[in-house]
């Protein structure tokens, strides 16, 4: 599949690199003991370190270090047992220290690679340049007052991992697949909740264009994009903007741009004279971050099964198709749910129910697996009722809907509504006899060779038994009784 974009002067290639900022899951901040929970009262989770008070000293959170190492291992990346914290200097109202503590030349995690899965079923490897630890800034709120900006420092000092990709992506689709995969890996690892609405994951998008085979073009950086859809819109807009400029004989400015989700466009964020010069230097308040190989091995030993390995296992051991396996491992919550349903049951049947009717109901209700009104054990219970012949697969679909609405167990619903499949030969025979007696003409048609009439008979009997007759038995008994 070609990702090239047709222009007036030939075909263009889009080159995309991403910086994903992922908030580390930890109780307290990177360098202070203040809480990190989302949604607290303004400035209630701020220590004097986070407020940038003079003389306050940062002390590193061991869990933040572990989480960064864990994430690095999940990204198949090199872990640097010696790394350095630097100050990135700039002035902004929500940055009380006047600098962000970050890592510049010596990050905690070096090069890695992840495999992203594309819609056409193919996959591609995307390089990771580095992952480093840094502090988040506070939050500026612009809509509380006509002439003032309000500043809340609760987020100030929260640990972030900045994950920088190589400029390896060539389309908005690949960029979206990359963010989805990074998010899935971090969620499997439990190092970031990946919640883009709450801002715990955001991306800066670097976009440039070139004719295939040329040197890399000048890039524009689109800051702080907070959903995959917006990111893809921004890439599409930026691609055509840059191609238009270049084809008109202009040149691209290396600049920072903002994405406006209202208009779907990007615009320059700062004028050139304000161009940032961060004057990085090692933070004199912090010694280098050092740990042993044993520390890394200890974390490696506790890594969960990650999506790629899980997908292979689903295909090899459970016999699922690549598509089914891909869908089921795409989010940790889905995989956990599926595995519970599949335990002690036929994996393919479990897979069909989870991503068939169950997903359809979730989708209709706009719910995530984690918010499902029925548990994996309950869905398993429903499958058991089909397996042991208590209800038919068709009835089960209705039962699932009722379960979804009421949260009741399948067995309770089947009992209360009297949905048990009728497998009693006598009862079914009775119904068959009635239908045969009332429809002598159809019986004659069947005996005359019109096999299709059998379906009509089955329908009549299912209707008479409100769908509860065991379909295999109905078929078998009908054939016997209709024999001339």
């Amino acid at each position: 599949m070609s990702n090239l974009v047709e222009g007036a002067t030939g075909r263009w290639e889009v080159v995309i690199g991403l910086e994903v900022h992922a908030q580390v899951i930890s109780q307290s901040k990177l360098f202070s003991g203040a809480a990190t929970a989302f949604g607290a009262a303004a400035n209630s989770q701020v220590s004097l370190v986070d407020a940038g008070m003079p003389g306050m000293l940062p002390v590193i959170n061991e869990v933040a270090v572990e989480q960064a190492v864990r994430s690095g291992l999940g990204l198949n990346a090199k872990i640097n047992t010696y790394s350095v914290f630097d100050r990135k200097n700039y002035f902004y109202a929500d940055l009380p220290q006047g600098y962000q503590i970050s890592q510049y030349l010596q990050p905690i995690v070096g090069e890695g690679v992840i495999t992203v899965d594309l819609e056409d079923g193919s996959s591609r490897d995307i390089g990771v340049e580095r992952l480093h630890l840094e502090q988040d800034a506070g939050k500026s709120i612009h809509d509380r007052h006509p002439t003032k900006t309000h500043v809340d420092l609760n987020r100030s000092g929260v640990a972030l991992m900045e994950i920088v990709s190589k400029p390896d992506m060539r389309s908005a689709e690949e960029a979206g697949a990359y963010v989805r995969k990074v998010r899935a890996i971090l969620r499997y690892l439990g190092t970031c909740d990946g919640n883009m609405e709450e801002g715990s994951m955001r991306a800066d998008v670097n976009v440039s264009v070139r004719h295939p085979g040329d040197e890399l073009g000048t890039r524009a950086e689109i800051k702080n994009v907070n959903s995959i859809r917006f990111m893809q819109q921004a890439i599409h807009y930026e691609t055509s903007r840059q191609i238009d400029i270049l084809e008109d004989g202009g040149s691209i400015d290396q600049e920072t741009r903002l994405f406006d989700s209202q208009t779907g466009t990007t615009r320059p964020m700062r004028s050139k004279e304000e161009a940032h010069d961060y004057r990085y230097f090692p933070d004199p308040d912090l010694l280098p971050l050092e740990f042993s190989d044993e520390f890394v091995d200890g974390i490696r030993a506790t890594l969960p099964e990650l999506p790629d390995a899980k997908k292979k296992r689903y295909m090899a051991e459970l016999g699922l198709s690549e598509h089914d396996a891909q869908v089921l491992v795409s989010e940790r919550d889905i995989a956990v749910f599926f595995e519970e349903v599949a335990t002690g049951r036929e994996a393919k049947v479990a897979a069909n129910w989870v991503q068939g009717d169950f997903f359809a109901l979730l989708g209709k209700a706009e719910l995530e697996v984690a918010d499902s009104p029925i548990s994996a054990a309950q869905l398993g219970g429903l499958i058991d009722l089909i397996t042991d012949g208590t209800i038919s697969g068709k009835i089960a679909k209705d039962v699932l809907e009722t379960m979804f609405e009421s949260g009741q167990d399948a067995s309770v619903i089947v009992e209360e509504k009297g949905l048990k499949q009728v497998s009693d030969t006598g009862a079914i025979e009775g119904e068959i006899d009635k239908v045969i007696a009332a429809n002598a003409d159809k019986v004659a048609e069947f005996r005359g060779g019109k096999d299709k009439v059998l379906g009509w008979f089955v329908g009549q009997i299912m209707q008479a038994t409100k769908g509860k007759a065991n379909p295999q038995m109905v078929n078998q008994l009908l054939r016997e009784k209709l024999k001339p």
Partner: protein
Amino acid sequence: MSVDKATVARIAHLARIGVGEDELEPLAAELSGILNWIEQLNEVDTETVPPMASVHDEALRWRADVINDGGKQADVVANAPDGDNDGDGAFFTVPKVIE
């Protein structure tokens, strides 16, 4: 190494320090002097010496991930010249900064 007037103006701007036009020339001379003095250090061959991260011979201290700070809104905004405690929380306020 010498620093010119434009560089001084730029550094002053980045550090948000107001420096008058008449101060630029003398500051440039002063900073150039300091840099030249420091440049003497380059005469020492440090090829085989690892960079020194700190004068202390100790390792970075790590902290357990426990919440033992925060909950001091009043202290945090005590020095805010135009704080706003409107019931939803205590905020700092600054003249509107929006791109």
